[in-house]
């Protein structure tokens, strides 16, 4: 009897959140899935159901298959790997007993509080070919007298947006990793020290394995965020020059919102979703074993 009451109570508590999620998350997702297999008009409303035209149109687009998809994969891989490596160093450093550690932690978190659009606009200005401080410093320190126009050439522009992508991902990632580090009991390290383990051995044998669940979450979340990240690229380059910095989500905006090919937009949203889902499941399958044993 009591158990039944508890269940009812639990359901009552869950209901508002469930309703909200259904309305603002699940419904739009299902609607997108539905519209992607419909004929879609130029107003974006789905018409006749049951066609793969939208996906065919996408597959027939050379730009999408030969440029946008590879660029998206490079963007995601480089930004996530770069972010994880740098954030690891930052987290390890902040976990040490440094003077002013609290202040440093706050500073690392600060960029997170800034809107991505503003960050991207500031970087656009910093990278300005003639008036930007980046090239100003390069000239002032005599590193080069003819610094490049960062956003003008496809390769440099792509490298630039990737660097900014890494920069904005560090606060979140290093905070998550730091929390993971703090959860590792100190006595493990003390025991290892007594056994004469080197810093690298301690990192390999204690830190990494115990950090694994946190690393898993950090990688999965970062891949999702970065894969879907719109503002940085759109503000800095709008996908240019010559489409060379577009990723799926900016291409989706260009195709669906600007050019109002909503059908292809829906198809891209579904592809993105499917990719991320498969990635997350496979990744957690491969690397989630350790804590399966522990749970």
């Amino acid at each position, binding site marked *: 009897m009591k158990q039944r009451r508890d269940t009812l109570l639990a359901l009552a508590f869950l209901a508002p959140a469930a309703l909200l*999620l259904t309305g*603002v*998350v*699940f419904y*739009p*997702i299902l609607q997108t899935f539905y519209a992607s297999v419909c004929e879609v008009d*130029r*107003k*974006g*409303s789905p018409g006749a159901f049951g066609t793969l035209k939208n996906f065919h149109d996408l597959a027939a687009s050379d730009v999408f298959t030969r440029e946008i998809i590879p660029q998206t994969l490079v963007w995601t891989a480089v930004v996530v790997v770069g972010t994880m490596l740098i954030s690891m160093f930052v987290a390890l450093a902040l976990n040490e007993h440094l003077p002013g550690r609290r202040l440093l932690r706050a500073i690392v978190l600060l960029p997170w509080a800034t*809107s*991505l*659009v503003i960050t991207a606009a500031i970087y656009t200005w910093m990278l*300005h*070919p*003639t*008036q930007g401080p980046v090239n100003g410093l390069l000239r002032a320190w005599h590193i080069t007298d003819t610094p*490049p*126009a*960062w*956003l*003008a*050439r*496809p390769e440099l522009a792509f490298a630039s947006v990737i660097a900014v992508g890494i920069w904005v991902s560090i606060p979140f990632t290093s905070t998550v990793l730091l929390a993971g580090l703090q959860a590792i009991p100190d006595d493990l390290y003390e025991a290892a020290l007594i056994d004469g383990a080197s810093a690298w051995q301690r990192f390999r044998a204690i830190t990494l394995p115990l950090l694994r669940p946190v690393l898993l979450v950090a990688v*999965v*979340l970062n891949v*999702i*965020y970065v894969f*879907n990240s*719109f*503002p940085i690229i*759109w503000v800095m*380059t*709008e996908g*240019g*020059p*010559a*489409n060379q910095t577009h990723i799926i*989500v900016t291409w989706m*905006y*260009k195709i669906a*919102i*600007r*050019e*109002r*090919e909503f059908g292809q937009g829906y198809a891209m949203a579904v592809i*993105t*979703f499917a990719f*991320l*889902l498969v990635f*997350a*499941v496979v*990744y*957690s*399958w491969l690397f*989630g*074993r350790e*804590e*399966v044993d522990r*749970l």
Partner: protein
Amino acid sequence: MTRWTIATLVALLVLLVAGCPQQQPTETIGGGPEAPATGGDRTEVRFLAMEYDTNTRPFMQKVEQQFEQANPDVDVNIEVIDWNAGFQKLSTLIAADNAPDLANIATIWLPELADLDVVQPLDDFVSEEMRERFIPMTLEGAQYQGHLYGLPIAVSARALYCNADLLAQAGKEPPANWDELVEVARACNNPDEGIYGFGMQGAKVETDVYWYYFLWANGGRILNDDHTRAVFNSPEGVEALQFCVDLIHRYQVTEPDPTAYDREGLQELFKSGRLAMMITGPWFWGMLKEDVPDLNYKLAPIPAHTDQVTMAVTDNLIMFESCENKDAAWKFIEFFYDPELRLEWAETFGMLPELKEVAESDYITGSEQWSLFMSLLPTGRFVPLHPRWTTIAEEIKLGVQEAQLQTSTPQKALDAAAERVNRILAQAGGEAE
């Protein structure tokens, strides 16, 4: 817990995170003045007004008040909305059968809306007498498939802005044609000091337009008459693009790496006094006056080659088919084209007048800048009115950028772009049938 449970949990996590609404790139600014409680039998007219700048809202509020004072039986509701969000909002309203009665739209949206049969042709509303009051070419922007679909509300053209001090130092006058452009740009160019002869746009929206200035000046055209084929890769087009590429790479008189500069980027460069010449619109002199009042500048027509041209843009005030009180809505339109009001509009927003009476006013004829732009207007060309214009422009922009980056020759880049555009045209033609 099994591996499957973990995998499912992670999958759910993805569902949640990936489903969260992304940051919107643009934001609707406010919702406009609230509608006063509609008393009794006043007929309502809803006007969705795209915002030109911060003056739009107060201006529209004033118009609303004045009109309602003169017409107490009509209740006008003007909602001011940001341009970028405008088309989306309009599309949503149309899809929900809740279109406003009036809206000011970009001319490039017109074919698309007209094809949806939601725009009211105004042929029967505009009297011969009223038509006479407009400068004829300004009405062309709303002429689509034999009907007049709207009235011009924000006319503009483009001209060559010259930094007068830089030109004077070099002992030059504004160039009239391509040869002189090269000569003047060379004389003013001083890359060591960070000063460049001519600004070339290569990034973001309207990169293609910057090339049309040269295409049109060389007698070229973008599409053929019935919009079934791309003709911009004609010898005239290739020569025009080659000239742009030469300005960058052969004569080296532009800022280096134009693909880093959008229109705003060029305007900033001009404002900082480091650009001798660039092509842009009438809004720019207002910015110059406000931001760098000490900068001496001169206006000139866009340098000609075989033809003297400029680009004309007219946003249009349209009425929707679904409007229930067309007479009331029309009454408002007539009120809106009051010469005094339109002069105030021109002064407030820096738009060129579309009414002859306003164009002949002392305010316009007494100003050098206004007169120059008005004199250019008859040479104005419109971009083709095609429902897929945005997509077409993106393809052309890609070709222009490839040539600027020298990853392709002008001929190859334009041929490839023409092929892509032809595919879009064929597709659109097929749909129309």
